[in-house]
């Protein structure tokens, strides 16, 4: 489907990641120096020219496994080290937040406003480091240049591609549940009231015309909702009022418990990773993205600090970074069915490529093992 999803996926998922990291770093009383260094290093790598250029090439959206691998590497571009359980929680939060934003996006084109909300906040995080701030601006300009002129139909295709990527994910996030954005069954709440998207008419009117184009009748029908006129248009430029609030930072320093994902009754799935099940194309993308995060941008590990992002109820498991499918105890049939579907979906989704006998394939596999 759409070949233009990757830049938006990384900026938005990466943005959510930074929101959560920022909140947790503050909640854990990390020194200002360390916090700033972590943010600058991650943002600098994420918005680095080589990495962005790779993302901007037309290509398919690959699996969660690939996305998580690259985002983990991005997080580790800083002096911070996340344990595997933290990275899993982080990815769940990021993805559910972005899923919510894409689903609720009023018009497909407003995906850009959501992206710009993330960029605006990221710019704030690194405002004291002009070198990194410039990279953010540069990327923002490129995004404006490439995406601004796309027609709505193309944005809807992009959105539909993203929705397939998020399909069947219903992990409950305590912040969403608390604000009633999400139901206890993990599905997001959709309203049938409020302002219609910019450029649309409030439903309820039928107009009939004669053959000369003159309106001859006007009648109203009950809409089953209570809709109002659209609010003003958001700004699609480098700076400005985006109007839409989706994509803004939901996490505050004062509510550390909000970054919890709900464990009981939910299905936790860590993607199974056996490198030779990735399609060759996907491995190639992974290699290119990893390669584009320059080695000298990576800090020395001796100066790093280990961070446990989230307090968990159960003991930390000593798992490899990408473990096997880990299934929580479930209590109702619906969750069991859902699990079967999700497990089935991941199993069916695995590619069975021909043996990667070429040396290039072996190098890629070796690289995966090193992670």
């Amino acid at each position, binding site marked *: *489907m*759409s*070949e*233009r999803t990757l830049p938006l996926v990384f900026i938005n998922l990466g943005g959510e990641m930074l929101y959560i990291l920022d909140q947790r770093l503050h909640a854990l009383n990390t020194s200002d120096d360390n916090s700033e260094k972590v943010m600058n290093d991650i943002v600098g790598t994420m918005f680095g020219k080589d990495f962005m250029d790779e993302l901007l*090439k*037309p*290509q*398919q959206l*690959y699996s969660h496994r690939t996305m998580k691998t690259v985002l983990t590497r991005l997080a580790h571009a800083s002096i911070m080290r996340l344990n595997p359980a933290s990275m899993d929680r982080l990815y769940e939060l990021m993805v559910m937040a972005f899923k919510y934003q894409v*689903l609720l996006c*009023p*018009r*497909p084109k407003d995906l850009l406003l959501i992206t710009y909300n993330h960029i605006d906040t990221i710019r704030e995080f690194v405002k004291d480091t002009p070198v990194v701030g410039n990279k953010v601006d540069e990327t923002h300009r490129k995004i404006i240049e490439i995406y601004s002129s796309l*027609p*709505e*139909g*193309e944005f*809807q295709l992009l*959105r*539909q591609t993203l*929705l*397939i990527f998020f*399909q*069947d994910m*219903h992990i409950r996030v305590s912040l969403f549940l608390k604000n009633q954005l999400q*139901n206890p069954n993990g*599905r*997001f*709440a*959709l309203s*049938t009231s409020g302002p*219609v*998207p910019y*450029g*649309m*008419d*409030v*439903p309820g*009117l*039928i*107009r*009939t*015309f*004669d*053959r000369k*184009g003159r309106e001859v009748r006007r009648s109203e029908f*009950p*809409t*089953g*909702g209570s809709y109002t006129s659209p609010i003003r248009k958001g700004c699609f430029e480098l700076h400005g009022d985006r109007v839409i609030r989706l994509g803004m930072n939901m996490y505050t320093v004062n509510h550390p418990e909000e970054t919890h994902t709900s464990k009981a009754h939910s299905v936790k799935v860590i993607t199974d990773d056996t490198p030779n099940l990735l*399609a*060759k*194309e*996907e491995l190639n993308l992974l290699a290119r993205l990893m390669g584009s995060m320059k080695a000298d941008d990576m800090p020395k590990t001796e100066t790093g600090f280990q961070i446990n992002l989230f307090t968990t109820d159960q003991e930390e498991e000593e798992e490899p970074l990408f473990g096997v499918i880990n299934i929580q105890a479930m209590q109702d049939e619906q969750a069991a069915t859902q699990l079967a*579907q999700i497990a089935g979906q991941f199993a069916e*989704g695995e*590619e*069975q*490529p*021909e043996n990667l006998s070429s040396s290039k394939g072996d190098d890629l596999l070796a690289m995966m093992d090193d992670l």
Partner: protein
Amino acid sequence: ISMYHKEKSIQVKNSASALYNNLGVLRIAPRHLTYFTVVHANVVNMVSASWDGLNYSHRQLQSKEPNVATSTSLIMQAAFCPLPSRDLLVVTSQKGIQMYESDGSIMVYWHALDTPETPTAQAVFARGISAVRESYICVGVSSGAILVFDVPIKGSNITLSEVLKEHKESITDIAPECSGQPGMECIADLVSADDGGNLCVWKSGEDFQLLNNIPGFDMSCSSVKLWKGTVVAGYGTGQIHLYEAVTGILHAEINAHARWIYSLDIAPFSGLLLSAAEDSLVRVWHLTMTPETNSVEVAHLHNECVTDTQICGAKFCDGDGYAFAVTGYDLSEIIRYTQS
């Protein structure tokens, strides 16, 4: 008393993807069965449901991959093509067009799309499926082209008969004249719609003839129908427009939905119209033609709200509109409604 009431849903093996017109329905009267299709990523879920509600059988069709080293080919649409001699199931994806016998048991034809070696910014896919007249199946492509396939009475000797190049933007939906009135001569046989909202009206034949081009207004027409010479078009703006097909005269304009429309359907014997959108609502309307004045009237009859769901498919299950079925993004069921 509400016009329709909810029946028992049909469970599907996977959830529906957010794609336009994501529900196929084929009524097999002699066997008291109805087939349903719902697309999930690279899979088509087929359910065969007996009318007595006692028997359900499931089948899954995969998109055809040219080779295993490439990533999955996502399916854009699956639709039934009922022809006088046979019914086929057509599945369109990023890589090409698959045609099956209507029960999904055998693939009878595969047409590969021209995909570039390295991906270009313009996505490549097929979308928009319609049977036309006695023996044609038309399929739209992302370039705007419409492929016309000639289908023999039986067997797999399906051939590409013509390529219609009129649309400049990706095809979204194609629909045949469905008045269902034997002996009624309809001038137009087919309508096609694209991402710019442009509508083309065609006469089928050995060479398809363009009868009219109704310009859009830079807004995607996601679903289109043709009934008794009237085009009914649903747009991303939530509006429905009714046009006289051959002249392009606008009969009516409805501010129908608060979000992007994903599916329209018409029950040809009663003139009932079904519309469904991302705003969680399915609406039932009634169209009345007045031949003397060549005018069309629209009346709103009924609403159904599928809570917290962005609807992606809605179709009548029979020609009178006695029952209809609905699919929604992330839902693993086909929701059904019947007249009270």
